[in-house]
C-alpha cells in the first residue's frame, strides 16, 4: 500500500491533469465512457504508440528524432507500392511488405544513427533533413498520388477483431511490452538512461555511447516503419502525407507521459498513458461537440495549462526543500 502511494506520488502532474479532463468529459458527454468509444480511442492511439515508443528512447537518451513521421510515410509508400505491384492476396507478400516497411525505416534510422551517433552531428539538423528527404521521396515514388484499394487480407492485419479489440491494438501492445522490457530490464536500456543522464559519465564508465546512439535511431526508425505500414492496412490507402504530424504528436505524447527533454528519467510506461490521453482528449472534445479546428486550440491550451501547474508544483517542492533547513 505504501509502495502504491510512492508510485502515485511519482506520477507527473500532466497525467493527473489529463485524468481530470477525462472525468470532465465523462460528465459532459455520457457517451464518452461507452466501450465502443473507449476501444476506438485505443485503436486511434495504437500507431502513435508504436512510433512514440521509439521517440521515447530517443528522448530518454537526451535527443530527438523528428524524422519519424517522414519515415512512417516513406515506409507506408514503399510497402504500399510493393503490394500494389506484386499483389496483396498472398500471405508471403504481405509479410514481405511489412519486412520492407520496417527495413526502410531502419535504413533511414541507421543514416540518422550514423550521422548523429557515430559522427556526432546535431540530432535536430540531421533528423530534420532526413524527415524532409523521406517526405520528398514518398511524393516522388507515386508522383504524389494515393494508392488505395487493398485486399481484405491485408486490411485485416490491423482491423480484424481479436478478443473484441482490433488487432492493431494488440500489435501495439506487443511492441510496447518489448520496448518496456528493453528499457527497464536490459543493459542496453540502462545505458540509454545513463547516456541521457550524463553522457560524459556514461562514456567514462566504459559504455559505447556511439553504438548505443546508433541503435536508438535504428530502433526508432524501424518502429516508425512498422507504424507506417500498419497505417496503410488500417486506412486502406497509402498516401504521401499519411504520417504527417506524427513526429510532433509523438513528442507531445512522450512529454505528457513525464519523460523530460533533458533525458535520463521517465520511460515508456508514461508514454503509453500520454498517448492514450492525447487521443482521449481529442475524442472527448469531439463528443462534446467541438470542431477539429477548435480541438487543436484546446489541446494546445490544455497542454500549456498542465505544464504551468507542473512548474508551480515543482517550485512549491523547492520551497519546501529550502524551508527544511531551519527545522
Amino acid at each position, binding site marked *: 500500500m505504501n509502495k502504491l502511494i510512492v508510485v502515485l506520488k511519482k506520477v507527473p502532474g500532466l497525467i493527473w491533469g489529463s485524468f481530470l479532463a477525462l472525468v470532465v468529459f465523462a460528465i459532459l458527454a455520457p457517451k464518452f465512457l461507452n466501450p465502443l468509444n473507449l476501444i476506438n480511442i485505443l485503436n486511434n492511439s495504437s500507431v502513435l504508440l508504436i512510433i512514440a515508443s521509439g521517440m521515447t528512447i530517443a528522448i530518454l537518451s537526451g535527443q530527438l528524432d523528428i524524422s519519424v513521421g517522414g519515415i512512417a510515410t516513406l515506409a507506408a509508400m514503399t510497402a504500399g507500392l510493393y503490394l500494389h505491384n506484386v499483389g496483396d492476396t498472398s500471405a508471403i507478400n504481405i509479410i514481405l511488405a511489412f519486412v520492407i516497411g520496417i527495413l526502410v525505416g531502419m535504413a533511414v534510422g541507421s543514416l540518422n544513427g550514423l550521422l548523429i551517433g557515430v559522427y556526432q552531428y546535431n540530432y535536430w539538423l540531421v533528423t530534420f533533413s532526413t524527415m524532409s528527404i523521406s517526405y520528398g521521396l514518398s511524393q516522388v515514388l507515386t508522383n504524389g498520388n494515393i494508392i488505395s484499394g487493398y485486399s481484405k487480407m491485408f486490411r485485416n492485419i490491423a482491423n480484424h477483431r481479436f478478443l473484441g479489440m482490433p488487432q492493431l491494438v494488440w500489435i501495439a501492445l506487443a511492441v510496447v511490452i518489448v520496448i518496456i*522490457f528493453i528499457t527497464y530490464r536490459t543493459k542496453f536500456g540502462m545505458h540509454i538512461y545513463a547516456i541521457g*543522464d550524463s553522457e560524459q*559519465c556514461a562514456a*567514462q564508465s*566504459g559504455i559505447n555511447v556511439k553504438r548505443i546512439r546508433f541503435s536508438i535511431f535504428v530502433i526508432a526508425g524501424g518502429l516508425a516503419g512498422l507504424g507506417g505500414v500498419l497505417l496503410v492496412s488500417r486506412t486502406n490507402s497509402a498516401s504521401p502525407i499519411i504520417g504527417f504530424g506524427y513526429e510532433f504528436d509523438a513528442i507531445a505524447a512522450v512529454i505528457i507521459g513525464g519523460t523530460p527533454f533533458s533525458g535520463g528519467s521517465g520511460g515508456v510506461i508514461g508514454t503509453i498513458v500520454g498517448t492514450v490521453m492525447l487521443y482521449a482528449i481529442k475524442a472527448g472534445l469531439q463528443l462534446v461537440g467541438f470542431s477539429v479546428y477548435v480541438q487543436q486550440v484546446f489541446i494546445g491550451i490544455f497542454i500549456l495549462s498542465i505544464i504551468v501547474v507542473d512548474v508551480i508544483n515543482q517550485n512549491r517542492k523547492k520551497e519546501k526543500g*529550502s524551508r527544511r533547513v531551519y527545522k
Partner: protein
Amino acid sequence: MVEQQKSVLMEIKQLTKIFPGVRAVDDVSLTIRKGEVHIIIGENGAGKSTLVKMMAGIYSLNGGEMFIEGEKYEPMNVLQAQKAGINMIHQELNVMPHRTVAQNIYVGREPVKGVLHMVDTKKMNQMCSDLLNSLEIDIDPCMLIKDLSIAQQQMVEVAKAISNNNKLLIMDEPTSSLTHKEIDSLFKMTRKLRDDGVAIIYISHRMQELMEIGDVVTIMRDGCHVGTRRIDEVDMAEIIYLMVGRKIEKVYNRTYNEPGNVVIETQQLTGKRFRNVNMNVRKGEIVGLAGLVGAGRTEIAKAIFGYDAVDSGSLVFNGEEISLKSYSTFDAVQKKISFIPEDRKQEGLCIKMSINDNIVMSALPQLFHNSIVNDRLLSKVSKKGIKDLGIVTTSGNKKVNNLSGGNQQKVVIAKWMVTDSDLFIFDEPTRGIDVGAKAEIYTLMNNIAKQGAGILMISSDLPELIGLADRIYVVKDGELTGEVAQKDFSQEYILGLAL
C-alpha cells in the same frame, strides 16, 4: 618509527605534454608508491591536472614513458587506464543524477541473469551494499544520486573507482565544494584506502590539507617538477617558496582608508533563507560576511544584487531607496553593483566565449551608446583589463575555458572593473585558487577599496577575512549574529558567533 620504503606501483619518466604555445608538462619524472598519499601541489597553470590526465589516459603523451609495476603502460583512453587499475575523480562531479547509487557504480558492468540477459538489479544492489559497507559508507544503494549531498555523491564516485580493480586513485581537488565535516569523512575514507595499499594522488590548493592527509608532496611550477619531499621532512614555508618560486612577503596587502558615505544599507531585509538583516557597507571599506556554508551568506548577497527575491525589508543604495518590487540584476548593474559569484564557471563567466567578450559583457550599454558594437573600442577596453589585472594569456580572443582558475577569476573581476561599480560583492573570491594568485586577488581587492568603492566579501576562509576586512558581519541560520570590529578580530570569537 621504522620507515619502510613502500613498494613502487608506478613510475613515470620524462613525461612531456605540449599544447599549442605552451609546454604544459615538461620532462616530469615521478615515483608513485603503494599505500601512500602523494600530493601534487602548484600554482594554477603549473601543469598538475595535465600531468595526472596523462596518467589517466585522457591526454596523449608528447614524450616520456610510464611503467606500472615494471611493465610499460600506454593507455590510449580512459577505459584502458581503468583496466590497468588507474581511476581519476575529477574536480567536477561526474555522476548520473537521476540514477540510483548502484546503477551509477556498476554502469557499463551490470550483472546479468537468464537467457534474456536481464540486468540483475537485486544482485547489483547487493554487490553495491557490500562494497559500500566495506568502505564504511552509509548510503542506501537504491537512493537516487540527486537526493545525496555533494560529499556523498563524491563518495559514490570513489566507491565506483575502487570497485574497478583500483590500484591508483587520482583525486583532482576533491574538497573544493565540501564543508569541513564532509572533508573529514572524505579524509577518513582516503586514509582507509591508503592503509589497504591503494596508491593515491591528490591534487590540492589547500595547504592545511596537505599536512593533514599527505605522505609525500610533489611541487610543480610552470610545467616542471621542482621538488618532491616527504611531508614530515618539510615545512610550509619551503613548500610555498618552491611553488611560487619567489617569497611572498605579505599575503594580505591592505591599506586602510577612512571610510566614506554608506554605499548600501539593508533594513530588516528578509528573504527565503535569511531574516531581518541590517547591515551597511561604506565607500573604501571591505566588509566581511562570515558564517558556515549554508548559513545564508550567498543568499543575502544575491538578494542585494537582485538575483534572489526579497520578501520584505528595504535596500538603500547611495542614499536612495531601491524599489524591491521589480528589482532585478539588470537594475543592480545599472546602479553600479557588481557581483563576483562563487561558481565562476557556471555563473561568473560565459565559458565558451572569449576573454574580450567576457570582459565587456556587463559594460556593453555603457560602452556603446548606439547598439552597434565597435570592435576596436571593445578590444581596447579588454586589453586594458587584461593588463591591469595581469591576466596571463596570449590573446584576448582566447576562450575563457582554456584559462586556469586564478586567471578566470581575474577575468570576472575585470568584467566588473570596466563597469566602474560603487559596490563589489565577492562570494568566496579565492576558492580553488592557489597561494600566488590569491595574493594577487587580495591586492586587487585592496586597490578597488582604495579607489573608493565598497566591498562586501563572503568567505569561509577566516584568516583571509581577518586579513582583509575592516569589519565582519557574522551570519548564522539566516540571521546576523554579530558585527565584529577590527580590534576584536579573532578566529575563535567569529567562529563562536557562527556556530
